[in-house]
């Protein structure tokens, strides 16, 4: 498996994502600078990591979507490549229009960092194999995580089985219909607010985040 982790100025979970890909999944991992206009040959999975690209000026993700690398990410996704946007990466995917909806400031108007519980849904996505119906614990850490979309869009997302995760129990940010993660139409692009890459080792408090990476890996290897 070949993983590309994109670094925007202000990304700060890029190192963590690369660590998971490289050390825990054993994937050949390349760090891609946002000014690069292309992805490495043979890339199987692109991770847009968390952080504060451009200091979250205006709206988080609003400026990063114009980085040269995003053109390459878009065509990679259109060809069916797997793209995972975590936290700020999710926000960038929304701003870039690769996923529907938009992100608003948390209802509490405060940054929130804590472990939350998520329910995985039956979606048919390569990221979600084995996660349907499971309740997983992962940290969230964000200031703008209140997912918003029009009612029609929300209805359609559920109908098309494109809601990957919902918050179970407490909703940490006021997201519409408790949505924590959504998929693209072809289900190869996943954006989620929680940080699966921070829940990958017992010594750091849990391993529930590993499942999604392993699902992607086995999907790619079976291809």
């Amino acid at each position, binding site marked *: 498996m070949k993983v590309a982790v994109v670094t925007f*100025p*202000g990304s*700060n*979970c890029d*190192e*963590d994502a690369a*660590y*998971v890909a490289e*050390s*825990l999944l054993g994937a050949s991992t390349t760090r891609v*600078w946002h000014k690069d206009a292309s992805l490495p040959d043979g890339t199987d999975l692109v991770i847009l990591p*968390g*952080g*504060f690209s*451009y*200091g*979250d*000026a205006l709206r988080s993700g609003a400026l990063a979507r114009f980085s040269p690398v995003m053109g390459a990410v878009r065509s990679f996704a259109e060809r069916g490549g797997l793209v995972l946007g975590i936290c700020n990466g999710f926000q960038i995917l929304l701003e870039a229009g690769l996923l529907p909806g938009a992100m608003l400031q*948390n*209802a*509490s108007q*405060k*940054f*929130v*960092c*804590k472990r*939350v519980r998520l329910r995985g849904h039956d979606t048919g996505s390569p990221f979600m194999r084995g996660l349907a119906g499971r309740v997983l614990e992962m*940290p969230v*850490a964000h*200031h703008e995580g209140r997912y918003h979309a029009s009612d029609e869009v929300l209805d359609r997302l559920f109908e098309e089985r494109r809601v990957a995760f919902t*918050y179970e*129990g*407490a*909703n*940490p*940010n*006021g997201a519409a219909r408790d949505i924590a993660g959504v998929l693209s139409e072809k289900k190869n692009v996943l954006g989620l607010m929680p*940080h699966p*890459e*921070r829940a*990958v*080792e017992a*010594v*750091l*408090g849990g391993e529930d985040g590993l499942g999604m990476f392993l699902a992607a890996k086995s999907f790619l290897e079976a291809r």
Partner: protein
Amino acid sequence: MSSVVDAKVAKEHGLTVKEWQHALDVLGRTPTIEELGMISVLWSEHCSYKSSRVHLKTLPTEAPWVIQGPGENAGVIDVGHGLAVAFKMESHNHPSFIEPYQGAATGVGGIMRDVFTMGARPIANLNSLRFGDPKAPRMRFLVEGVVAGIGGYGNCMGVPTVGGEVAFDPSYNGNILVNAFTLGVLPKDRVFLSQAAGVGNPLVYVGSKTGRDGIHGATMASEEFSKDSEAKRPRVQVGDPFTEKVLLEACLELMKEDVIVAIQDMGAAGLTSSSAEMASRGGLGVEINIDLVPRRETGMTPYEVLLSESQERMLMVVKKGHEAAVHRIFEKWDLSSAVVGVVTDTQHVVVKDAGRVVVDLPVSLLVDEAPMYERPTQRPEGLEALWVEPKLAEHPAAERLLALLARPTIASKRWIYEQYDHSVRAGTVIGPGEADACVIRLPDAGGTPKAGGGPGIAISVDMNGRYCRLDPRRGAALGVLEAVRNLACVGAEAKAVTDCLNFGNPEKPEVMWSFAEAVVGLGEACRALDTPIVSGNVSLYNETEGRPILPTPTVGVVGLVEDVRRVAKTAFPGPGHRIFLLGSTDVLSFAGSELQLLETGVLSGRPPEPDYARARAVHGACIEAVRSGLARSAHDLSEGGLLVALAECLVAARPGPDGVWLGAEVKLPGGERTRSAFAEGPSLILVTVLDSEVEALCALAERHRAPIAELGRTTDSGRLHIDQFLDVPTSALSDAYENGLMRALDLNALGG
């Protein structure tokens, strides 16, 4: 700005009559306005340590594992495995009182720059905060702003904020304390220093452009607050964590290439102090072309550029001929870099504005010749009279316990630390609220996480200002003991200390006495525990309208964990465990205790004399119990005493999936019951073990000569029960503890 420099202008710059005369004598002429500006900031208390230096010299600073002691941007110690950690704590009290968000944010930004200047990647932030009475004017605004500012900066930087402490006392009503701590990791043989070297090497400016922010911030930090501090408002600096994040990455990238000779961040007093200090440390001179400094605003005078405290800037001495490497890397990160001067052998700081010399000062005048005072000290009158404990009235124990748990100083700080990202960087083994100290897994020298177990760093910041008011020497020593004990609770051995000494006006002999005594206490404790002080900071003039804060010599202690899989947390592990108390209750006292303050409103009594042999025994036993896996939980006694500690262990365990809370069935240790339940004292730690391990634990304690007593066992009753003394549901303890802070300050709940 008037350009006629005379005694009056000097006074406006904060120089005393004597200091002005001294400057004239050494210089042999009247300084220019730019020179006066530079002299005044470098001679300010904040930069020159003129009141504190004679005392600080007495502190222990050496040990075989110390790589860099005080005197550089941060202290550095060897932590094995080819790695070192750099750490320091710094205050941003005055700016935070004026503008809490930006004040706290730029404090965090400043301390992180101090650490990555050393070549270290920051991996942990902590903070120590002091606020006034929750009901005092502006207090809620200050709390909300400071917390948001700390989070706003640290979160954006991607450095986890993993711990801290917060206390409330009316003495901080008009002068809150914001002390920020950062620790970073670096290869032990690649420490970057700030000594200028190599005559002819270029001086390179990198980072943000210079604006008119915070001109004279350093002198502001050296003055007492008064009503007209309001007028100083525009001097507040605004932080830009996004720029600092790219500055951090650019600096670390450049440090991998062999081009930096010296590097220094532009903190208080900006370009003035960074250039003079680099020259002084290298025994050389510098020449700066001020017109080459990148600017954000038009029409800035040389005076303004020299004194600006714009954030996110660094000054470097670069090997001649390697300027291109600097420009290449900084361009990649969209940052400014400019050659603004050169290292000279003149031992003068020369500043030119388009060729015109505006400053030509001997470096020694600015740094070595800065005034140093042995200020008079005077023990406060009537101190002995205070050393009597008032009698406490009879009161039901359960009510007392619930009231203590809800005190904002004791109550959970969840509302605060959930606003800090504490899990970024794949290293947080124990984060805030889980144990007495935080634990970070050591990454590799570049900061990349390393999978699995392995060595870790434990950190705790502590100080009890009330003990320090009653007896600053003992109080300061007890603060060190507490921090070291907190490390022992997670199984870590303390190695070194950074401090942040917050006091009132040093020109008052009583304040100066408390400062001097506290330094003696710190030195004594650090010697006894073999934890040298490797970095620190002094913040004086913390008073409003003549009323000083409690003496608050905060310490941050750093220690080592052998294997991050073998640590202990506060929470009781489950029902059916045996609860033991390491240490002896013979030292318990109500002096300065939370209960005394709650019920009498009077601060009195004398805190106990620290017993270092006892402390070493208890810490040693606890560390071994945790590392060997015997101790299933560990938590020390601090504010509120034994019952508060027991309650915290129960509450931290959270209810199980079935909603059932843990309970405990406990007997109080000997002595008067109220005292053993609620009085406070050092070197006491609660640990739990399995039934089958009781003997092993007792044998271990005996080997360390640590007193040990069995208190009882954990149960599934969901109640804390002490026969004929107290019986409270754990859920009620949790409600008081979890909501105390929010209720006291009338804060809004966070999401979910």
